[in-house]
């Protein structure tokens, strides 16, 4: 095995034993990038010089014996988190030249933990999309089949991990943007509880839904990343001052006696039969681990997507009002007046999907329609949250498929936004209710495409998710495969 193929905890062992240096690990990652990046396109920007310099510094730290949780570990950052002095585009033309004057809190935390930043990962423009096809910088391809999408919006963060172009990465999840690409690329992806990870420096899409979380090669690495990312931040008014456990303690614990809720609404017509079979097999593995699976009902599941496509665009149209050609980013020249400059800058700067969502949101919030759309959606959102509150009385954790189908073909759904939105049908409820969710690989289709199983738990119960996910991972005996590139 090459160094770039290993997990964080395997590399930490090698670093401690003197079998690997940070520079060697980083070089191995960039060798891989040189070999495959032209085909996969995980990154908008690579930071090779900076990474090698950071790795050299990490090696000095290692020599002194002051090893931190991520010392010398190459990490990719979704290009939605602000990096001081390094362009941060959010996958958009309108921010193509934006250089943040500060670091996001997660970037500070990762750097303080010793991480080496490999590059800024590709994404759907402003995180609006399920396929990474809406990026201004061109699509990312699924390393398991280059003609297929990697999922989205954090597609580049998922492929960078899946194709061993980094060791772990950071994504953001508003309606499934970490879990869906994790499932379609065969890696682990966690969306933490709303308020668990600071969003200071995360470019806002839908503020009542957005969360930052990790992509990793296994569940233990996910716990290691969460130990670094989680916690209260006085700079972020929605971050919650709740105690953060050591997440690594949950790895390897059994789940004997746990009740696992299987929501009947998630196993309906329209799921790909191979996905359904793999997830049903995952249920038998969980039972072998000592979990007791019980059927539950989340009766408002069928309304989640409709609620989401009011709430998210409404919040987005407000958040994206700031891109007006005045303070940063693109400005078109030769405008007649200020209004003309706004309109033409936004016309040129935003892609079709972003415009579409701004339009939906603006309409839903406009005079005369607010109650019918935003008001109604906010009420149904409360019912969706109540569904989960009732479910926790019957089970400890919920198990569902992460996605209804494996990765689809590039271009297949670009002209039909509604079909594209339906690929997030199993991940959206989590964000609406603010609960945490994790996607873990659970097998492959006969064509060799990865499939994911999703576990959900109550607010701030990421520990439970890591415990069941690690128990599942250990007992599932999923064939270890790597994409052939």
């Amino acid at each position, binding site marked *: 095995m090459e160094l770039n193929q290993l997990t964080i905890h395997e590399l930490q062992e090698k670093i401690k034993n003197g079998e690997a240096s940070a520079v060697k690990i980083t070089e191995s990652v960039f060798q891989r990038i040189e070999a495959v990046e032209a085909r996969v396109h995980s990154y908008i920007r690579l930071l090779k010089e900076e990474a090698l310099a950071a790795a050299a510094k990490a090696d000095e730290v290692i020599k002194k014996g002051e090893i931190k949780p991520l010392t010398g570990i190459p990490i990719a950052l979704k290009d939605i988190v602000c990096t001081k002095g390094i362009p941060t585009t959010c996958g958009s033309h309108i921010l193509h030249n*934006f*250089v943040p*004057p*500060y670091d996001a809190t997660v970037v500070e935390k990762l750097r303080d933990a010793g991480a080496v930043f490999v590059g800024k990962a590709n994404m759907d423009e402003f995180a609006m999309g399920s396929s990474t096809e809406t990026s201004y910088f061109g699509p990312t391809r699924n390393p398991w089949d280059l003609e297929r999408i990697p999922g989205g919006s954090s597609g580049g963060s998922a492929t960078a991990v899946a194709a061993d172009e980094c060791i772990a990465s950071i994504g953001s999840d508003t309606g499934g943007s970490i879990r869906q690409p994790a499932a379609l690329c065969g890696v682990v992806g966690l969306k933490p*509880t*709303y*308020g668990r990870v600071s969003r200071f420096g995360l470019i806002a899409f839908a503020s*009542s839904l957005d969360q930052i979380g990790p992509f990793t090669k296994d569940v233990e690495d996910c716990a290691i990343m969460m130990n670094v990312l989680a916690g209260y931040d*006085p700079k972020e*008014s*929605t971050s*919650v001052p709740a105690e953060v456990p050591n997440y690594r303690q949950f790895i390897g614990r059994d789940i004997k006696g746990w009740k696992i809720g299987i929501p009947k609404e998630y196993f309906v017509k329209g799921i790909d039969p191979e996905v359904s079979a793999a997830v049903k097999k995952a249920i038998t593995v969980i039972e072998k681990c000592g979990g007791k699976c019980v059927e539950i009902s989340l009766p*408002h599941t069928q*309304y989640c*997507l*409709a*609620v989401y*496509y*009011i709430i998210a665009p409404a919040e987005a*149209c407000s958040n994206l009002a700031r891109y*007006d*050609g*005045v*303070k940063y*980013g693109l*400005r078109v020249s030769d*405008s*007649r*007046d*200020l209004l*003309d*400059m706004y*309109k*033409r800058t*936004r*016309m040129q700067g935003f892609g*079709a999907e972003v*415009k*579409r969502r*701004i*339009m*939906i949101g*603006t*309409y839903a919030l406009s005079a005369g329609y607010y109650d019918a759309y935003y*008001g*109604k*959606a*906010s*009420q*149904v*959102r*409360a*019912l969706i*949250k109540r569904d989960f509150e009732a479910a926790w009385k019957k089970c400890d954790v919920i198990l569902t498929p992460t996605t209804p189908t494996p990765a689809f073909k590039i271009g297949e759904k670009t002209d039909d*936004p*509604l079909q594209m939105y339906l690929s997030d049908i199993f991940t959206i409820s989590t964000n*609406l*209710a*603010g*609960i945490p969710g994790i996607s873990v690989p659970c097998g492959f289709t006969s064509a060799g495409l990865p499939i994911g199983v999703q576990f959900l738990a109550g607010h701030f119960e990421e520990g439970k998710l890591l415990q069941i996910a690690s128990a599942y991972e250990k007992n599932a005996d999923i064939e270890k495969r790597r994409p052939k590139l």
Partner: protein
Amino acid sequence: MKLSIQEVQYVARLARLEITDKETEKFTAQLNDILGYIDKLNELNTAGVEPMSHAIAVTNAFREDKIVESIGTEKSLSNAPDARGEFFRVPKVID
């Protein structure tokens, strides 16, 4: 059809977006599709349900009224397409 072409043009004006005739046509069809789907919500009786705006009960996040380091004018203007002195410069607002 819930939305006419004229309404789509009106919403685009509200959103400060200039859209072409071709985009207007495409958006009209797509927005009608999406809004048609969203109509599902009207199947539910939500009388008396308190609308939810945040997943976690958040209270106002106050901090002590202490001066802390800020980014400063120069850095704040560093990304501006057209900065002059301490100001963001914009095209004329009215004739």
